């Protein structure tokens, strides 16, 4: 935890930030609470809809950090991605309409970077941002109920900023190990 805060501080001070249009988090923005994927929904789900936990509802509008994996999508949105507890993939032709994405996946919203789309990363990420609850429908039809308006995306293991709008290096997919 301390390491993460330190890394975040370094990330801000050196301004290697993934979102050029976003302001740096400051002390005035308030403390950062940690939210786990198992702390978002009341489990098991009841006979109808989901129920958000007391903790999630209490953090609505506040700054939180969440550590998980990018969902790998067949048709990713340029400025949105999903983060889940494991690095799941959704291959459906119809985007997320019928998917295996777990219900507690969180939609992360990045500031737009014209001409650049989000590129999937295999490693674990920590997203810091403002938690936003409630129904939201995007232009492409994806619906979210739990979102993070991202301030920073960091590599979970090193704490270094990750610019998801830059292409993924080929070696990250293992090309150096091919025979």
């Amino acid at each position, binding site marked *: 935890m301390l390491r993460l805060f330190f890394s975040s501080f370094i990330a801000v001070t050196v301004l290697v930030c993934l979102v050029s249009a976003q302001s740096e988090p400051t002390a005035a923005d308030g403390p950062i609470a940690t939210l786990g994927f198992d702390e978002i*929904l009341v*489990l*098991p*789900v*009841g*006979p*109808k*809809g*989901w*129920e*958000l936990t007391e903790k999630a509802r209490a953090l609505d509008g506040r700054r939180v950090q969440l550590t998980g*994996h990018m969902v*790998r999508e*067949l*048709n990713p949105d340029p400025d949105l991605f999903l983060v889940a507890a*494991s*690095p*799941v*993939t*959704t*291959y*459906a*032709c*119809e*985007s*997320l*309409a*019928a*998917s*295996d*994405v*777990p*219900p*507690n996946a969180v939609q992360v919203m990045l500031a737009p970077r014209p001409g650049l789309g989000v590129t*999937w990363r*295999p490693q674990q990420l920590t997203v810091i941002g403002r938690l936003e609850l409630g*129904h939201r*429908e*995007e*232009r*492409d*039809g*994806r*619906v979210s*109920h739990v979102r993070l308006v991202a301030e920073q995306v960091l590599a979970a293991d090193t704490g270094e900023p990750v610019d998801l709008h830059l292409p993924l290096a080929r070696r990250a*997919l*293992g*090309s150096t*190990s*091919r*025979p």
Partner: protein
Amino acid sequence: MNLSSLVSHAGFASIVLAAASLSTSAAPTVTRLNPPSALFTFDDSNPPYISRFVTGQRFDLQATVQADARASITAAVFRINGWTVPGGVTITPIGGDRFSVTRRAVEANFPGVHKLTIEATQSDGAKVSDQGNFEVVAFKGGPRGRRAKNVIYLIGDGMGIAHRTAARLVMGNVQMGKAEDMLAMDSLPHTALISTASLNSIVTDSAPGAACYSTGNKSNNNQEGVFPDDTADKWDNPRVEHMGSYLARRMGKALGIVTTADVEDATPASFAVHTQDRGAGTGICDMYLDEAAANANLRVLMGGGRKWFLPQGTAGSGRIGSTTSSGADYVLPADVAAGWGVPTGAIDPTRDLIADFQAAGFYYAPDKATLDATPAGTKRVLGLFNTGNMDVALDKIAERRGGAAVGSVAAFPDQPMLEEMTKKALEVLNRERDGFVLMVEAASIDKQAHNMDTERWILETIEFDRTVQACIDFQKRNPDTLIVVTADHECAGVNIIGGTVVTDAELRTRAASGGGAAQLRSGVVGVYDAAGFPTYGVSSTDGYPTTLDTDKKILIGYAANGDRYEDWLTNPQPNVAGAARDVAGNFFIAGQAAGAGVSTAVHTGSDIPLSAGGRGASLFHGVMDNTDVFFRVLQAAAVGCDD
């Protein structure tokens, strides 16, 4: 509208005369004519005929006419064999001086090949005409044959020959070249190979791959129960009547749909819905109630996809307040609603679709316990066991055995197995006096093959086979039942390349070594003699394999692969991207499918197996086009057969 008095062989003469009398040099042009035909597209009047129907099956006529600049199409008429199709056509401007001309819900009642002509008149009086054709299929035999009262379609989505073989190798205890036990689907007496190309590609997706079984016709990828047109509207395409509606209207049969996917997914929707967008979940699920329950006697709908049924404002709802985006709702053009006798629909994201189903008499089951408690005598059931796709057999069985809840099992811990849903569906549908059509889909054979998750699709295939056995048991008690077991396409280019030559313990050591191909290919992959005969244990409690990580397990290769690391072991988590799992072994296999296919394996154009049993099963043999299956089923159900 009945065209029985219009469609006749005598009409051929008049159509020739009519065509000859028309100018073919008019400036406007016909750029599309539906139903699709090689006569229109290639000026080829020879078989095979692209569009075929059974007697009385409804379908739309549609043409796209390109007018001169700033001109419009003011009148149009369709003729079949030279006879004018009565009733008004609808002419809709669709941009670029193009006009869509439609005549909804016609039917033709005389077997044979019929010529379809469109004649259109431009605002300046210029005329254009063009021709296509379609066939009304003549059934062999006659009404004296015995009919199949009930039809059970079992679709292993993505299930090619090798998926079946792999399941048999795990469950059949193959030794000295022979399986001790064959699969249930292996026991069905009649076999065919099915070609699967769609209207626009040698490689189909699940929408046209399944819709052909319900309509008898090809459509483009992503389309369900429609022909392609030239508009962006998801809901205005020329429709083809589904088997469920046809048999409900003419014989009073009921329809059931059971899947392990989200119920909006391509295969289930392809048996009841009409749209060019397989992802339009809000509208698709509304149509199940608004159209299928009303007009096709839909009595059972089970699977995942609860999100489409929850009103917007409820956490977990996926309902969309738009007709254009992914997941869209439906609003039909007036001519579609009037022609087919269905509601226009509405953008209603706050609709409580579960409540509406309940108001229509459906018993609602959100989990297995509630499904098991279905009151005696219930005749309508809606089961929604997950907000998205249901979890897969491997993870549901692991949780039932006391293992960790992975995927969304923790959120939905009481999801039924496919055979449990199917048994309940059969129990409910068997109360229908006039019989039923039941479509059962094992959706995640395909989904897990896409993700090259070998152990998960093998268990999905085993779950599917147990479902086939449940249907065979039903058929024994109800011999006037036809069982058709097939797929919609092959997925991932699956094949059995051999077996490991090491123990599970050694494989785990190698998988943790980071040694790449030197550790996980060399010294592990046994081919030919070295593959031997892997053996698996089966639980006497639940009937599923005790583990798929045995010593010397079978190995699967993927000819249509995406990028993945491979360590040959069961992945602890489902649906993890192939490039993000098994990384400790450092054995990377680059995908060969282009573009998005790098992230997952893709469908292939290989033929798929079909097995049939029960009343009418002898109609299935040889190599058949996928649309042929529809006509053989209709022969068995509506006309009769000798077996």
